[in-house]
């Protein structure tokens, strides 16, 4: 049977098990849309902006573990998608983006809605393709999904000129296997390195496990739990790793890094053996590199060889999938006795007693931290929580104690404001039976508001927790600390009435101004299972995120709420972000 390129493309997507596509039509992809319309297996979600499509696909991917799929047109279609592609790239999220391109004969002629999609996205994708020949559609789709979802995952873009989608060939046979000589991701760790790591682990007296997003993406949560409990070592997690190890477990010492707990950062600083699992020593984590873990031997397990030794010199590198390497390590450590670390635990518990996440309540003011605590309580810690970027993101990470992986969905690497709402929509489509909350702020939410319309059309009820303090809070906090309270352009005057706004999109809006109304409003919102509810919560505009490692400082130089109301930095710190 003869099929046109568009039908072959859609069939190839079905072969990959795609059930949702997030997209927006336009001239260059009309044949593909026509082919999509002629089938029922793949559901298309018509977003209101292509950036929303990428974030929704991203939220879908982070929640389900399957690649998110995006379809956009040429020109502005793909340029609008770039922010979402870069977001997925920084957090290693599997995604396949298909962009239409002007007809082959017009490429390079500055045709209407033409951009060099492959060129523009090159530095923010794992790989990209321009399909020039209809015979390459099915194999390219196969390769794209393979590349996106194996090794260190990431987004793959396929640019396809319009003429390639309308010419016809005999339906290609489906090929299930793929072998690329230039792409052979490593799975298992080197046994010698695993033995070395095990020896180091057994001899360490002040160890700490530092687990990152790789444990979530690599589905290694069970292995991480077994490994940690086998050793009874303290474990800290990065922003991206939260949920891989249960937050309520006593071995968990909290998140580390700029807004991590005092005990996690102090333990990192004083450790003699840091076991990094699927983490990449990002600058939010290490703080000042010259002061980072001065006495520790470092074991680094990562799928990406280029992550190892990039920022921090490593004593025992192990390249491989964290799941496989942890299994081997668990085996290697079985029946072996670790050094006595009871005095290390006493020290950690002393740091713990500082209670670095304690905050002051104030009469008549809703503290943002208390909103997250109430959210945790009302949802019994079982919701999927997406977030935007800023103070609210940190509070959500600190006060919603994630016990399961793939429940905390946020843009950690790129820090993309506007991510939270479309990601919540994608998460709800992936897990329709779970409650989904989008923790956001009045700054971030306004970057992707239009997706409220999509959420009504496809009935993806989520609860929007808008921590409304009238400020771009994280900017304001830095200006208070480092710019002598000169609040340059961080106050948002003329905010919309979010309740009416939500209602105009067909959703429910609730404004919360008093602390006593907070919990009842949350309960009411989650009771409305089939409605999207926008909770506009007026929170303390002067609240800061603590504890904090100011720019340029080390892990043992944290600022604590109540003790250090004011932070300072030096010239070196001011040059850092």
């Amino acid at each position: 049977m003869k099929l046109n390129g568009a039908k072959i493309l859609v069939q190839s997507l079905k072969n990959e098990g795609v059930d949702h596509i997030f997209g927006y039509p336009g001239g260059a992809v009309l044949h593909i849309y026509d082919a999509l319309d002629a089938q029922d297996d793949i559901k298309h979600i018509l977003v209101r902006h292509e950036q929303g499509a990428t974030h929704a696909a991203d939220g879908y991917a982070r929640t389900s573990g399957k690649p998110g799929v995006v379809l956009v047109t040429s020109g502005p279609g793909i340029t609008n998608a770039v922010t979402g592609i870069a977001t997925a790239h920084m957090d290693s999220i599997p995604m396949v983006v298909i962009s239409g391109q002007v007809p082959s004969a017009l490429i390079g002629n500055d045709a209407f809605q033409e951009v060099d999609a492959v060129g523009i996205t090159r530095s923010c994708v794992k790989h990209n393709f321009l399909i020039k020949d209809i015979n390459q559609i099915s194999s390219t789709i196969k390769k794209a999904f393979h590349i996106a979802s194996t090794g260190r995952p990431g987004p793959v873009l396929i640019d396809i000129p319009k003429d390639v989608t309308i010419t016809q060939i005999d339906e290609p046979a489906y090929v299930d296997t793929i072998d690329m000589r230039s792409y052979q991701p490593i799975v298992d760790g080197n046994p010698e390195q695993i033995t070395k790591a095990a020896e180091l682990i057994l001899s360490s007296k002040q160890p700490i496990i530092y687990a990152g997003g790789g444990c979530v993406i690599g589905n290694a949560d069970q292995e991480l739990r077994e490994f940690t409990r086998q050793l009874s070592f303290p474990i800290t997690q990065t922003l991206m790793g939260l949920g891989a190890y249960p937050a309520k477990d006593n071995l968990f010492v909290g998140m580390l890094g700029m807004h991590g707990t005092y005990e996690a950062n102090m333990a990192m600083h004083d450790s003699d053996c840091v076991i990094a699992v699927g983490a990449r020593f990002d600058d939010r984590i290490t703080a000042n590199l010259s002061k980072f873990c001065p006495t520790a031997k470092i074991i680094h397990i990562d799928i990406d060889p280029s992550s190892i030794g990039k920022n921090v010199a490593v004593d025992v590198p192990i390249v491989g999938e964290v799941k496989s390497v942890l299994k081997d390590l668990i085996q290697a450590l079985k029946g072996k006795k670790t050094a006595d670390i009871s005095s290390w635990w006493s020290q950690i518990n002393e740091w713990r007693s500082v209670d670095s996440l304690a905050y002051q309540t104030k009469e008549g003011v809703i503290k943002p931290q208390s909103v997250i605590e109430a959210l945790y309580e009302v949802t019994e810690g079982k919701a999927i929580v997406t977030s935007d970027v800023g103070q609210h993101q940190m509070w959500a990470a600190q006060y919603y104690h994630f016990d399961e992986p793939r429940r905390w969905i946020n843009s950690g690497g790129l820090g993309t404001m506007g991510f939270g709402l479309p990601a919540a929509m994608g998460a709800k489509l992936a897990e329709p039976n779970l409650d989904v909350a989008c923790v956001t702020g009045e700054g971030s939410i306004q970057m992707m508001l239009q997706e409220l319309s999509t959420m009504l059309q496809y009935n993806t009820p989520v609860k929007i927790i808008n921590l409304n303090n009238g400020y771009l809070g994280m900017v304001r906090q830095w200006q208070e600390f480092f710019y002598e309270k000169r609040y340059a352009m961080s106050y948002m005057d003329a905010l919309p009435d979010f309740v009416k706004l939500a209602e105009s999109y067909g959703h429910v809006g609730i404004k919360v101004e008093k602390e006593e109304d907070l919990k009842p409003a949350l309960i009411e919102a989650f009771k409305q299972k089939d409605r999207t509810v926008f909770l506009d919560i007026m929170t303390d505009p002067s609240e800061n995120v603590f504890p904090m490692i100011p720019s340029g400082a080390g892990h043992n130089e944290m600022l604590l709420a109540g003790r250090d109301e004011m932070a300072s930095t030096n010239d070196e710190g001011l040059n850092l972000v």
Partner: protein
Amino acid sequence: MRHIISVLLENEAGALSRVAGLFSARGFNIESLTVAATNDETLSRMTIVSVGDDGIIEQIVKQLEKLIDVVKVTDLTATEHIERELLLVKVDVNPNTQADIDRQIDQFSAKIVDVSEDTYLIELAGQSKKINDFLDALDASKILEVSRTGVTGVCQRREG
């Protein structure tokens, strides 16, 4: 330190820009870059000369290996290898300077590949240092145009 990095990669459109883009995006330095197809027409060989400390060179190699189109990366500097570069240089020649230029050509075993009324076009292949030395030996004011290919190289062992 100067390193010669040899990259075997799929002969695909855009492969060169992936490599060039990687170097500029990550702030790595490129002294020279040459690329051409190999005996296997599906593969290209790229030779990059870069300068950096061990940590930077390690990152360059790892980041290159991470590119999906890259089949193999070898730091030639770490092994026994042969490197060559080709120079084409056009020089002004007149009766007063001709003898000196001829002597330099002879000394460096360079070759005159084209002659006009008042110019020579000279070809010289060798290590970059030899080419630098030859150019230094010529009277700078007489050099009209220089074109160098950049370094290419091969590992001497049977299995590169």
